[in-house]
C-alpha cells in the first residue's frame, strides 16, 4: 500500500511529465488533453472544499463554472469588439488580460456563491442538493435566453487572452499557467484543512450542534467554505473557456455539476488529490472510450455505479488502502 502523500506527489509530477513529454514529442493535442484534465481538476478541487471538508453536496457548481466562463467571454468580447460594457451607471472597458479576467471571475462567482449560499444554507440535506441544482438551472436558462451574448449558441473569442511575459497560445505555456494555479489551490486546500477554520468546518459537518455550543456558527462556516469553493470553481471556468476560446450555456448545465461531483467521487471524497485523480481518469476515459464507441457514457455510468456500490473511498482509497481520508 502506498502512502497518500507520496501518491499525490507522484500524481502531480506524472501529470507535468506527460505534458513535457508531449511538448518534446510535438503532440499538442496531448497537451490540450492534459490542460483539460488540470482545469477540470481545479474546478473539482474548488467543489472539494465545500463537499469534502464542509459536507455540502452542491449539485449546482456548474453555475460558478459557467459564470467564470462567461466573465471571460463577456470581457474578451468587449475587448475584441472595442465596445464598453455597460453596467447601469458604470461603463467598463473589456480586457484581454488573464489576471484581470481571473480577478473578475473570482469576484463574480464568489458573489453568486454568497447569494446562493445564503439562500441554500437555510436548509440542509436533500433540500440543499435540490436547491443548488435548481439555482444552477436558473443560470443555465438565463444564459440561453440572454441573446446579447450569443444565447444558446454561446460566444467565441478569436485569440486566447494574454498573460504578461508569456505566450499563452503556445500549448505548454498555457498548461503551465493552469498547472501552477492547480498546485496553488491544492496547497491552499491542504493548509485550509489543517487550519482552525478547516477544523471547525469539519466539525460543523460532523456535529453542527456541538460546534454551536462552543460558540461557532456552523452556517457561517459553511457559507465561507461555499463562497471560497464557488470562487475557485469560477476561476476554473474562466480558464476552461480560455482553453477552447468559447463559452456556451452547456458550461452551466446540470450534467456539468454532476460531472464535477463524479470527478471527486472517482478520486475519493475529501482527499486532497481526489479531484486530480478523478479528472485525469475522466479525461482518459472520455478520450479512450469515446474513441471506441459513441456511447461511452454507458460505460462511465457502469464504472461509477461499481465505485459507489463497492469501492468506498474512490480510486485513491483503493490504492492507499485507507477507507477514511482524514481523521
Amino acid at each position, binding site marked *: 500500500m502506498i502512502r497518500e502523500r507520496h501518491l499525490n506527489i507522484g500524481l502531480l509530477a506524472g501529470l507535468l511529465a506527460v505534458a513535457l513529454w508531449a511538448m518534446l514529442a510535438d503532440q499538442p493535442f496531448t497537451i490540450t488533453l492534459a490542460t483539460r484534465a488540470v482545469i477540470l481538476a481545479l474546478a473539482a478541487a474548488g467543489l472539494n472544499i465545500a*463537499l469534502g471538508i464542509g459536507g455540502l*453536496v452542491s*449539485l449546482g457548481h456548474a453555475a460558478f463554472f459557467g459564470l467564470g466562463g462567461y466573465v471571460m467571454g463577456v470581457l474578451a468580447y468587449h475587448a475584441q469588439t472595442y465596445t464598453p460594457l455597460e453596467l447601469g451607471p458604470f461603463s467598463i472597458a473589456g480586457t484581454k488580460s488573464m489576471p484581470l479576467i481571473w480577478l473578475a471571475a473570482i469576484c463574480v462567482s464568489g458573489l453568486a456563491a454568497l447569494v446562493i449560499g445564503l*439562500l441554500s444554507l*437555510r*436548509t*440542509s*440535506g*436533500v*433540500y440543499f*442538493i*435540490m*436547491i443548488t*441544482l*435548481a*439555482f444552477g*438551472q*436558473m443560470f443555465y*436558462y*438565463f444564459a*440561453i*435566453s*440572454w*441573446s*446579447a451574448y450569443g444565447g444558446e449558441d454561446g460566444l467565441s473569442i478569436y485569440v486566447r487572452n494574454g498573460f504578461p511575459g508569456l505566450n499563452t497560445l503556445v500549448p505548454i505555456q498555457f498548461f503551465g499557467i493552469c498547472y501552477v494555479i492547480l498546485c496553488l489551490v491544492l496547497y491552499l486546500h491542504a493548509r485550509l484543512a489543517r487550519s482552525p477554520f478547516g477544523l471547525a468546518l469539519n466539525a460543523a459537518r460532523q456535529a453542527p450542534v456541538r460546534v454551536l455550543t462552543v460558540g461557532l456558527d456552523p452556517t457561517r462556516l459553511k457559507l465561507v467554505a461555499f463562497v471560497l469553493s464557488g470562487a475557485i470553481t469560477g476561476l476554473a471556468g474562466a480558464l476552461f473557456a480560455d482553453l477552447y476560446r468559447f463559452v456556451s450555456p452547456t458550461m452551466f448545465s*446540470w450534467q456539468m455539476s*454532476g460531472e464535477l*461531483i*463524479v470527478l471527486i*467521487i472517482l478520486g475519493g*471524497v475529501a482527499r486532497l488529490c481526489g479531484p486530480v485523480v478523478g479528472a485525469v481518469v475522466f479525461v482518459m476515459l472520455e478520450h479512450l472510450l469515446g474513441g471506441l464507441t459513441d*456511447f*461511452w*457514457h*454507458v460505460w*462511465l*455510468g*457502469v464504472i*461509477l*455505479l461499481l465505485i*459507489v*456500490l463497492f469501492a468506498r473511498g474512490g480510486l485513491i482509497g483503493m490504492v492507499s488502502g485507507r477507507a477514511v481520508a482524514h481523521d
Partner: protein
Amino acid sequence: MSLILIIEQVLNGLQSGVMLFLMAAGLTLIFGVMGLINLAHGSLYMIGAFAAAAVAGFTGSFALALVGALAAAAAAGAIIEITVIRRLYASDHLDQVLATFALILIFSEGTRWVFGSFPLFLEIPPYLAGPVTLPGGIAYPKYRLALIVAGLAVGALLWFLIERTRMGIRIRAGENDREMIAALGVDISRLYTLVFALGAALAGLAGALVGAIQSVQVGMGEPVLILAFVVIVIGGIGSLKGAFLGALLVGLTDTLGGIFLPELFKLFTDPATAQSAGASLASMSIYILMSLVLIWRPTGLFGAPA
C-alpha cells in the same frame, strides 16, 4: 391581451402543472418513504415516453401505448430498485446522488443506443385530436384538456390509495417508522419495491402523456426532473398535498411568466429590450418563486419542520 388568451394560458399552465404533479408525486413518495433522492426519476419519465411511442408504432393504439408506458416504467423502476437502489437506503445522500446520476447516464445513452438519436413521435389519437369549445366560446385543444382531467383523476386515485387503502396505511406507516412496521410483520423490502415501482409508473405515465404533445427524445426527462425538484422543494418534501399545490404553482408561473412578463416590460421599455429582458426573467421566474418560498418557509409549504 384578451381575456380568451389569458384563460387559454391559465389552462396551459394547469396542464403542465398537473403533469408535473405526476412526476413530483413519485419523487416525494420515494423520498418520504425511503429517504432516497432519485435523480433517475427523469429517466423513468423518458422510458415511459419511449415505451409508449414504440407500442403505438406497433399497434397503433393510444390506450395500449399508455398501458405499455405504465408497465415499462414500473418494470424498470422495480428492476433498478432491486438491483441498485436497495443498496443505497442506508448510504448518505452523496452516494445516492452519484448512483442515480450513473443510472441516468446508463439509461440515456442506452436509449440512444436502442432507438437512435432522432426524436420519435407519438400521435394524438383521433378521438382526442382537434379543439373543443369551452363555455364562453373558447376553443381549446381537446387533448390538453384531457391531460388536465387525466392528471386530476390520477391524483384523486393516488389520494384514495394513500389515505383510504390498507397499502396506503402501510406506506404512511413506513414514512413514520420503518422499524416498527417491519416488526409488525410487513415485508418492508417488498413495500419499498412497490412504492418505487408506483412512483416510476406515475413518471412513465406523465412521460407518455406529455410525449404526445412534445417530441419523444433522449434527455427529455431531466428538465422535467429539475422542475419536479423545484415543485417538491416548494411544497415540502414528502407531502403529496404540497407536491400538488407546488406543481400547479410552478406550472402556472412558468407558463404565464413566459407570456406576460415580456408584455409587462413593454409597458416600460422599447419592445426589443422588453422581449429579451422579459424572456430572461421569465426563464428564472420559478427559481425566484422557489427562493421566496424558502426565505419564508425553509422546509416548504407543507414540509415537516426540520
